[in-house]
């Protein structure tokens, strides 16, 4: 760790502390927690882009899959919905999967081209029809069960912490499918394919109400930490809070946020240590060799596509893990709020600004860029207030003040372009 690294992380600490003193400690801890989550997302993307040179423009999809895992693992099951159509739905999904497997198997076996195409198409159509025949009534039955509060199958009712690795697994599964199709082709094909899968994952989350209630949102996901209201009623806690000179309400929210920060920090530190170990091991040297010169690495007998697939899956799994953590922190899954600019391209800004190829660089970028993301809005408002002071009240002034909220995207773009131009290796360059 160089002096520069230490200085940069001290700067982050300073910024968060300043937020605490000048604005509020709740905001400061929010930035800290989301900064930790963002750092983990940036770590995942950094593994793909920084260590292997792979384009993943679908971070949002993997993050959302992590969020789905949080719902499916920790929400209590809805017995009425299961009774209404659970087994039928599973049967339908099984049919769908079996069709795909059958089509792939048949496609591999038949040698004659026209026969292969004909059988594949016919099998796919038949399978799809059967799937819809089983699926549609089951879905309608499930969604009809008390749609205002449930209308979905619910989850397994397990502790939410289990959802974190499961979120990683979900994302890894999706990454495997994408990697298998798009890796080994032109590098930008992977970009478009990931863009596509992330849009589809979000569409599924928005529209499949039986799965996670769609845009009706799942709220009140069980927590790994105590609830504020319980803390406030606990006389011991209230006593301690009073001893520190805080009222119990503020103290409880801060305490809960600190607990989350602790949990997230453990995950982040573990991931950083693991990836540093991996990078210093022969595996890391091999990955860098492949990134810097694929042809030479292939000539040395390295299976480039296979290694790419491996690191692509690992990176996506880390993004899925971060997504599950974020949904746990929010306590709700809101598919309507997943926007590619926020969850895919902002993570790109983090990696580029922090330093692609440098583990700690990505982490730094996660904190700094998220800090900026939160603070640009009030700063932009304040700036616009000052700039529009001489203007008379009217439509133009109103429009300008209103649009100041949109300043953050512009700022992110300018920051990214400036870093790319003047410090292309980021704030913490790869050694």
């Amino acid at each position, binding site marked *: 760790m160089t002096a520069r690294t230490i200085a940069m992380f001290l700067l982050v600490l300073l910024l968060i502390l300043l937020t605490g003193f000048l604005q509020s400690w709740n905001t400061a801890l929010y930035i800290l927690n989301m900064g930790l989550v963002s750092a983990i997302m940036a770590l995942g993307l950094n593994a793909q882009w920084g260590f292997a*040179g792979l*384009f993943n*423009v679908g971070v949002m999809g993997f993050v959302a899959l992590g969020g789905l895992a949080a719902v499916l693992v920790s929400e209590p099951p809805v017995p009425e919905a299961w009774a209404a159509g659970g087994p039928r739905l599973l049967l339908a999904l099984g049919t769908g999967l079996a069709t795909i497997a059958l089509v792939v198997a048949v496609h591999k076996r038949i040698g004659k081209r026209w026969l292969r195409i004909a059988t594949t198409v016919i099998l796919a159509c038949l399978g*799809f029809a059967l799937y819809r025949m089983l699926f*549609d009534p089951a879905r309608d039955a499930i969604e009809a069960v008390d749609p205002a509060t449930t209308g979905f199958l619910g989850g397994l009712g397990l502790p939410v912490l289990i959802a974190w690795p499961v979120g990683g697994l979900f994302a890894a599964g999706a990454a495997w499918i994408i990697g298998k*199709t*798009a890796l080994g*082709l*032109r*590098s*930008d*094909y992977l*970009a*478009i*394919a990931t*863009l*596509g*899968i992330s*849009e*589809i994952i979000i*569409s599924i989350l*928005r*529209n499949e109400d039986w799965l996670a209630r769609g845009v009706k949102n799942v709220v009140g996901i069980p927590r790994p930490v105590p609830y504020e209201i319980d803390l406030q009623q606990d006389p011991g806690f209230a006593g301690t809070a009073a001893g520190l000179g805080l009222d119990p309400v503020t103290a409880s929210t801060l305490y809960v946020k600190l607990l989350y920060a602790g949990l997230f920090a453990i995950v982040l530190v573990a991931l950083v240590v693991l990836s540093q170990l991996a990078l210093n091991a022969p595996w890391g040297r091999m990955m860098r060799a492949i990134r810097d010169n694929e042809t030479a690495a292939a000539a040395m007998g390295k299976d480039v596509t296979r290694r790419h697939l491996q690191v692509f899956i690992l990176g996506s799994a880390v993004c899925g893990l971060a997504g599950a953590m974020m949904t746990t922190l929010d306590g709700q899954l809101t598919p309507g709020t997943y*926007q*590619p*600019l926020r969850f895919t*391209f902002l993570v*790109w*800004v983090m990696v*580029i600004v922090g330093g692609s190829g440098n583990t700690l660089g990505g982490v730094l970028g996660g904190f700094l860029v998220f800090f900026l993301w939160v603070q640009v809005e009030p700063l932009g408002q304040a700036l616009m207030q000052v700039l529009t002071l001489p203007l008379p009240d009217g439509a133009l002034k109103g*429009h300008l003040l*209103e*649009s100041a909220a*949109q*300043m*953050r*995207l*512009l*700022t*992110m*773009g*300018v920051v*990214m*372009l400036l870093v*790319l*131009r003047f410090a*292309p290796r980021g704030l913490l360059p790869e050694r």
Partner: protein
Amino acid sequence: MDLLNALVALTNFVIVPATAYGAQLALGALGVTLTVAVLRFTNVAHGDTMAFGTMVTILATWGLQSLGISAGPLPTALIALPVGIAVTAWLLLATDRMVYRFYRRNRASSAILLIVSIGVMFVMNGIVRLVIGVDEQRFDDGARFLVSARDFKEMTGLDEGLAIRSSQAITLVTALTVMVALFWFLNRTRSGKSMRAFADNRDLALLSGIDPDRVVRITWVLVAALATIAGTLYGLDKSFKPFTYFQLLLPIFAAAIVGGLGSPVGAIVGGFIIAFSEVGLTYAWKKVLGYTLPAGLAPDGLVQLLGTEYKNAVSFLILVLVLLIKPTGLFRGTST
């Protein structure tokens, strides 16, 4: 008679909308494919370039409307279009000057340029949101229908109506004109030929005395024109909302890849393939089947293969199929 009804219903709900949408996608994909062929990178900011061009056109339309100028039965936006193209071309040239030129001179890889275009996308998106906001805007005026469903029914005596909105007809006419002009430019003019030479083999083109900066400038102007026209036509046909323009990125790229990145003909074919599959798979076929099948066999359900929410899944599926079966696309394009 039933067969005719089925045909009219099919035309009304599938062929006409898909043709208009396909033309819009084709124009967008042409812009993407030109960037890939000449500038050698995948421009993620293309959707937002379309949004920017449309926004300028909308502002110009409002300006013309407030002056009392209109194009009669045609939408005013058509008169405003040159303003939109000019401002967008200026923006792209300025962006090239301030951002892309540095990387081109350094011979940066296409990967770096793709990332740079992410930054450009943020900035353009920010500008659009700052200027016009995130809300939906409608700016179509003039005659709404070329053929309305009721007139058609009265004229032919069929049960099914056929409606052709003027925006759809305008889309098709404009797109055809633009495509013919583009191919004429690429194949017949000196500048177009130097562009193609530059795309084919950059070093050889430089040796033969082609001015690279000029080629790049021409390309950006063409991209600006294509993006603005595609965006405006889409906005006239549906409505303008900055976010939907970002989402057009996926079908547009799918179209360009299906046709073969870097191939203009491929981009057009790809645009129509994507549009027809998207509309065909998300259309509820109940009506058409009801007319064509014998009475006993008519389906009960909607016979909709995919919900309309999943229309982006269609472009993705086609994209995956092409990547698996023929990664170079239908028409072999350039490679970066």
